[in-house]
């Protein structure tokens, strides 16, 4: 069985047992999800890339002591949230979010990603923080209610209640944003 076919927990176990390729496989598997989270929480795509790099650097040391009390993605999610909070505390008061994007000054080709992220971020910012988390984890990342509750550190009933409220709020905001066809 190749590393890419292994489950998340099996990959982490392989990494813990000293397989360096297992960590590369973890990066390939989770970098998009971590980057998306960072794009939603931060105001700059380059900053999101730096934050993603920091998350995996912390994962390189932190996952060696992983005890499988949660899923590996839960651990990465919480680490991404912490890293982005630290970045936001250090960011300048005037953000870059309202600056028009120039494709020519975007050699990394992240304009489309930034636009998507901006739209999602604008909508999610209108939600309270907990509802925002539930939308990202349950609706966008397709985590189960149980996994979402574990990542957020709350009960499953709380996740369902938050999701119900968040969905209702999002529909209202989407209507106002004119995205409804």
């Amino acid at each position, binding site marked *: 069985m190749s590393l890419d076919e292994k489950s998340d927990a099996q990959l982490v176990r392989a990494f813990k047992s000293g397989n360096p390729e297992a960590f590369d496989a973890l*990066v390939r598997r989770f970098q998009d999800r*971590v*980057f*998306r989270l960072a794009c939603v929480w931060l105001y700059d795509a380059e900053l999101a890339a730096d934050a993603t790099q920091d998350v995996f650097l912390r994962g390189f*040391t932190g996952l060696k002591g992983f005890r499988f009390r949660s899923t590996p993605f839960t651990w990465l999610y919480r680490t991404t949230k912490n890293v982005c909070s630290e970045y936001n505390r250090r960011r300048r008061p005037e953000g870059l979010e309202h600056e028009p994007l120039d494709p020519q000054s975007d050699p*990394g080709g992240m304009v489309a990603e930034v636009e*998507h992220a901006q739209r*999602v971020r604008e909508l999610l910012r209108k939600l309270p923080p907990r509802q925002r988390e539930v939308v990202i984890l349950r609706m966008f990342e397709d985590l189960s209610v149980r996994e979402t509750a574990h990542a957020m550190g709350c009960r499953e009933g709380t996740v369902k209640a938050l999701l119900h409220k968040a*969905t209702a709020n999002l529909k209202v905001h989407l209507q106002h944003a004119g995205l409804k*066809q």
Partner: protein
Amino acid sequence: MSKDLEELKRGYRKISAPPHLATRIRAEVADQPPSRGSWIPITTTALAVAAIAWMLPFAVLQQAQQTAKPTKPSLSALAALKPEKPKRAAPSLSQLRSVSIPAAPSRPKPRTTVPRSSIDTEFENELLEEPSHAHT
């Protein structure tokens, strides 16, 4: 999920990490110094092995000494042992009756009159004595 939310989700899922990011992460990880705690498991294991190797001869020697010594009696064997009390013949009742008991001293009789002291007698004598001018 409504269409709007589906569209929002699709937009979110379109976000992907830049292609060079994995290479950057790999390079950054390779530059990391070895963790400070990496020597702990090796040292701990070595110490444990050394401790076992040092204690093993003592354990073997102790076991050999125990096999050479006579076995200690079990607790049930010890409980079966009873101390032998010296047998004494109980005296018979006739022997007890024949034992002479000294007579108890007689109890003093209670006095019917108040004991008179010499001071009281002299006082009575003085009262009975007639004065010298009584019969003149």
